[in-house]
C-alpha cells in the first residue's frame, strides 16, 4: 500500500484508539469506588461500652445510605471490629454464645475471627477501629 494511505489509516486508527481509551479511562475512574480504608469514621459508642471479658457486641451506624454494622470484640489485645458478613458468601453471621455462626453454609468463627469450621476461606474481615477521646470510631474494611 502506498505510504501516504497507510499513514492516513494508521493515523485514523490511532486517533480512534486514543479517544476510546479516554472514554474508558473516564468511565473507570468514575465507576471505581474509593478504597474502603478511606471510608469516613463513624462513632459507635464509648470505650466503656465494651468491657474486657464481655462477648462481641453488634453496633450499628449509617454508611452509604444504609444501616451497617460491625461486631466489636474486646480481645486481650484490645478492641477489634469484625465485619458481620461471613467470608464465604457474605451471609450475615451471628454471635451464637460461644462463636460466630453463619446460617447459610454453617461456617463458624472464633471470638478472634479465626475460622473454626465450614467453608469460609479466611478469617472474618476487620474494620478500621480508632479510639478518640474515649469514643470508638469505625471505618472501612482493612483486612
Amino acid at each position: 500500500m502506498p505510504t501516504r494511505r497507510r499513514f492516513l489509516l494508521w493515523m485514523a486508527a490511532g486517533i480512534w484508539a486514543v479517544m476510546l481509551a479516554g472514554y474508558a479511562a473516564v468511565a473507570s475512574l468514575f465507576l471505581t469506588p474509593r478504597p474502603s480504608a478511606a471510608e469516613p469514621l463513624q462513632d459507635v459508642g464509648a470505650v466503656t461500652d465494651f468491657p474486657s471479658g464481655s462477648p462481641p457486641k453488634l453496633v450499628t451506624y449509617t454508611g452509604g445510605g444504609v444501616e451497617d454494622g460491625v461486631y466489636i470484640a474486646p480481645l486481650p489485645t484490645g478492641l477489634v471490629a469484625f465485619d458481620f458478613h461471613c467470608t464465604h458468601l457474605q451471609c450475615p453471621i451471628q454471635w451464637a454464645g460461644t462463636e460466630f455462626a453463619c446460617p447459610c453454609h454453617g461456617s463458624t468463627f472464633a471470638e478472634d475471627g479465626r475460622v473454626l469450621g465450614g467453608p469460609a476461606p479466611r478469617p472474618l474481615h476487620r474494620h478500621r477501629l480508632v479510639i478518640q477521646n474515649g469514643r470508638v470510631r469505625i471505618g472501612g474494611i482493612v483486612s
Partner: protein
Amino acid sequence: MSKDGMSDRGARGSRAPSERPGSGATAGRDGHARPPARGAANGSTSIAVPERPLPLRAPGGDGVHGGRPPARPRVGYLAERLGLGDDAREFLHHPVPMRTSPLDYLGFLTAFVFASQIVTGMLLATAYSPTVTQAYPSVRAIMASPSGALLRGLHAWGADALIILAVLHLLRVFFIGAYKAPREFTWVTGTLLLSVTIGFAFTGYLLPWDQQAYWATVVGTAMAAYAPVVGGGILHLLRGGTDITGATLTRFYALHVLVLPGLLLLIFAAHFALVLTHGQTEVETRLPKGYRAAHRKGDTADFPHGPYRPFWPYTPAQMTVAVAVVVAILGALAIFVRVPLLAAADPLNRAHYRPVPAWYFYGVYQFLKFLPGRLDGLGMVGLPLLAAVVLIGLPFADRGPARAARRRPFAIGAATLVVIAAVGLTYMGWRGSRGVSGTATVVKNPTFAADIAPIFSANCTTCHGAAAPSGGLSLTSYAGVMKGGRSGAVIKPGDPAGSLLVQALEGRAPNGVPPMPLGQQPLPATDIQTVKNWIQGGAKP
C-alpha cells in the same frame, strides 16, 4: 438434492445473497440443498414452489428492463416509499414446511416476552424510585393498587418466563443441530442474549429492596469475588463499594434500564438479521401427514407446493396462538399468584432472615454444598466460565455436518446429562431452601433413628455436622447428640423443658444461644413436640 427431494432440505426462507430469486442457486454453504428460490428453474425437483416473475429492484418498476414489467403487481403506498415492496412480499410468501412444531416458535416467544418486559418495565419505571429510602415504599405503593400488582406480577413472572423460554430455545436449537454452519453466529449472538437476560434478571432482582432482594444480591455478588486476581475488583465495581448500599441500587438500576437494554437491542438486531438471512433449520424427518404415501404413489395433487406452504398467513397465525398461550399463562400467574414482597431490606438482618438465591441459582447453590470449601472458587467462577466457553465455542468445535440427534450420540448424550444434572440440582436446591422437615405429625413414642435423626438431618446438620460442628455439637449421631457441645449437655433425659436443645428450638435458651435453626423459621410445633416426647421417654437410641 436427494432423490425424494426431502431428506436433506435446507433452510426455509433462506435469503443469502447468492440465493436471491433468479440466481438459481439451490445449495447453501453448508452443502444442504435448499428449496428452490422462486423464479429459479425447478428442474427435476419434486418440491414445486410456484414460480413468480423476477422481482425487480428498481423503484417505479422501470429502468432495468427498459420498460414496465408486465406482471408486476402494484405495491402499497408505504411499501413503495419504504422500498420494501418486493422484499416484504418475498418474505411473506417464502415457503415454510407444512408440518411445524410449537417448539419452532420458542425463539419468537422469547422475543415476545422481551417485548412484554419492555412495556411492563417502562410502566413500572414511571412509579418506581431507585433510592435506598424510596425504593421499597415505591414498590409497596405499586403493589397497593390492583393494576400495579398485576403489572409487577407480569414483569416478575415475565422475567422467570424469559429465562425458561430462552433456555428451552437454546436446548431446542442444540438438539436439532441448528447451530451448525452456516448459523454459527446466530448461535453465538443467541448465547450473548442469554447472558444479557441473566444480567437483566440479576440486576432487576435487587430493585424491590426487600430482604429477599438484598440478601440474594449480597450472596450473588459475593460469588464474583472468587474470580482469581480480578475478583475483588469486580465485586467493588458491581457494588460501588464494599457492601450493598445505595450506590449499588443506583448502579443496578442504571444497568437494568439503560445499559442492558442498549446491549440487548444491539445483539438482538444482529441475531434477528441472522435468523432472517439463514432462515430456520428444518427438522429432517418431519413431513406433513400423508405426504410420503402420496409421493410414493406419484399423486401429490393435494400438495401443490410439495411439503411446503407460504409463510403468510399460516406461520403468523400459529405464532399468534403460541403467544396467546404464553400471555394467558403469564396473566393467570400475575392475577392469581402474588409476587412476594418481604420486609424492607435490613442490612443488619435483625430478623435473622436466611439468604436464598434466585431460583435459577439454586443449582449452583446446591452444587456448592457438594464441593469441599477450597473448591468453591471452581464452582462459582470456573464452572460458569467453562459453561460460557463451551456454549460460545460449540458451533466452531462441533463441525460435523450431521444434524439428526441419532447421528450425534456423544453431543446429545453429554447435553442430556448436563440438563438432567442442572434440573436435579435446581430441584434439590429448591427443596433445601424451603427447610423441609422430617415429620408432619407428632410421634408419640419416637425413636432416635426413625423419628429424631430425620428432623435433625433436615434442619440442623448443615451446621451441626460431623466435621467441625458449630458450637462443638454434632447432631449427626446419637452419641454426638448425647455428648453435647461446648455449652455442655443439650439433652436431659426425662426433662424436655430443661434440655438446652429444646430451649434453643423454642427460642428461649440462656447465655446468648440464639433461637435455632439459626436464621430460619422455627421448626413446626409438631417436630418440636416429637423431640420433646423423645426426651420425655428417656432419649433412647
